[in-house]
């Protein structure tokens, strides 16, 4: 880290270590992999440009990179919302439905994609990070720059909102 701060050429180790993680974070949120590769490259460029600002004070470097990626994506989606894509594995939907503690699991699983697609970006990020990317609350909190407890509370409020939306469908 300190070497990378002194000379960007030394950033390569960090680049190689975190490349796949960042790519998958980006690719989870866009449609085309070529586009995701481009954005990933830009994330690392931003990281290199701002590496001197990073100091470890309880925030893991990976979470710092994820924040940069999230910011990069948010800027992109503000310019063109059509770039935003939600990528779901069907098995993950059952986890979401299960977490909502509902009886008609199958029925809920089928309606979830539509409900998820209608969530605003902040709520969507919580669902994605918790259920599709299987992140711990601590990591979610680091990325979103909120407390762990806050992350839990927010997530369960989103689930309640989704449950209500399904019942109204």
């Amino acid at each position, binding site marked *: 880290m300190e070497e990378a701060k002194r000379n*960007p*050429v030394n*950033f*390569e180790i960090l*680049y*190689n270590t975190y*490349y*796949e993680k960042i*790519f*998958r974070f980006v*690719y989870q949120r866009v*449609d*085309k*992999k*070529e586009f995701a*590769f*481009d954005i*990933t*490259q*830009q994330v*690392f*460029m931003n990281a*290199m*440009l701002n590496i*001197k600002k990073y100091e470890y004070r309880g925030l893991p470097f990976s979470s710092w990179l994820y924040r940069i990626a999230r910011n990069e994506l948010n800027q992109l989606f503000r310019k063109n*919302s*059509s770039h*935003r*894509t*939600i*990528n*779901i*594995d*069907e098995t993950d939907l059952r986890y979401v439905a299960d977490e909502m503690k509902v009886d008609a699991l199958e029925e809920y699983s089928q309606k979830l*994609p*539509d409900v*998820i*697609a*209608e969530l605003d970006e902040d709520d*969507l990020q919580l669902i994605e990070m918790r259920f599709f990317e299987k992140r711990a609350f601590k990591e979610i909190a680091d990325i979103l720059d909120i407390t762990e407890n806050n992350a839990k509370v927010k997530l369960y409020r989103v689930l309640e909102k989704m449950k209500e939306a399904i019942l109204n469908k």
Partner: protein
Amino acid sequence: MKKKVNINRESISSEEIASQKRFGSLIKSYPAVTNPYRRTSWRTKSIVWVAMASVVLVYYVIKGESSEGFIRPPFEEVNIATTDYSVDASKGGDFTYKSGTKIVVAENSFLDKNGNVVKGNVDLKYREFRDPIDFFLSGIPMQYDSAGTKFEFESAGMIEIKAFKEGNALTMNPNSPVKVQLITTGDASDFNLYYLDTVAGNWAYKGKADTKRQMNAAKYLASVDSLKDTGSVMVAAKEEFADVQVKQEEEKLNKIREEIAKLEKRTPFLPRQLDETKNHFKIKADTNLFPELAIYKNIYFEVSDENENFTPDIYKTAWEDPVISEYRKGESYKLTFRKGKAVHAFIVFPTLKGSDYDNAAEEFSGKLKKHSQALAAKKEDEIKASHDFETAYNARREPAKMQLNQSAGGTTQILVTLSAFGNWNCAFPINLPTGASLALKLEDIDGKQLGEGDFYMVDKNRNSLFHYQTNTLSRFEFDPKSQNVFWAVVDKKMYVFTPHDFANVNKTAGEYTFQLRKIDKEIARKEDLSEVLGI
């Protein structure tokens, strides 16, 4: 606005992700900051930020354009020609290239530079590169950088497909991609797909090749060949490749073999002369079981000295009919006596006595000679019949095998859904050959050192083109067990080092000079190159 949702999108492998790492590109785009970024006036900061933003902007702009400067065909006028197709973009169409490759163009496959779907007629240009000479003439690099490790490609086939409307290059509509069914000989099931990224100047890994190969026929053929080794070829012939002639030859061969078996069983046998001082029995042998004995009358079975348990008391018992069985073929038999639970078996020799023996002995040599001649003749017939059968069998098998090969038994169909126009390669990364290592110097046959240029080698066991720069020849390796050909292109002239030249190389010399022969023949076609290189 409702967001797009993909359910169960195909996952992407770690390898594919790793193949896209471009730290080199990143560092090239990184701004050279001469002063440390410290507190400066807002004006200086603004200038720095604008400069950085410009660098980033330029990075994106450059990335959007394609650069093919690293594709360098060695000859301006000799290259693999494209085949042109005209397609109605709204309707799509199927096209079959001369190799059998099928190009399937869907409706609305083409986008213009603004991302709009193209209507009307589109010019599709397609060509294939199959062998090292194709690779050489194309000038397309066959080297692959995989996360910093360099490999050579062994290719099952490379294609180039481009689309134009009124001279303007088109891009592929990702919602309606073009598909290619590339036909290649051999088994390409372990190969990968690569796309030539002309911006990055490298091949990009695109996943495992989706191949289709008819293995049943190939497996059957392999099993037929293995049956042949065990002598059961007739079973195989009946089941698959038999036709009328093959069956006839097979029946003829079988008949001859049966006759030989019968003849061998009737090999003339001369009983011994009875030693009347030894114990013996007079028992009628079953002529069906022992035809070699049937020709003799009054056979006595003399008890062999091998029997340790024989006693003359055996004559005192009225035994059930004794049973004769063969003991040592052509020599001795076993005689078994039973009565109730009592069983005795003895080794015996068939013998004749007196005039019976004299007459038999006199006739025997004639009979043996006659029999030997008959057997020899039958064996000759067997050899001929076997040859006739093999000929008929192979004559039927080879066309069948080729037919199966052509109908995808021995070929592979590589199914590619293209994500872009350009060059695609079904290939496998391999290392440079090894075996013999030399510090190489290159001269022409007059002893004049060759200058800077491009140097190539083909190992005839691989469908690869190995490309060397001058400074990599200080440790040149090749497989001495293969047939290799090496050539140089220096100042637009070609020089060659043939397989015959390779055979004379002192592989343990350490330092060695290749003297390459200059090619004076004009290279006007691929065939000219094949001729001078011998590949």
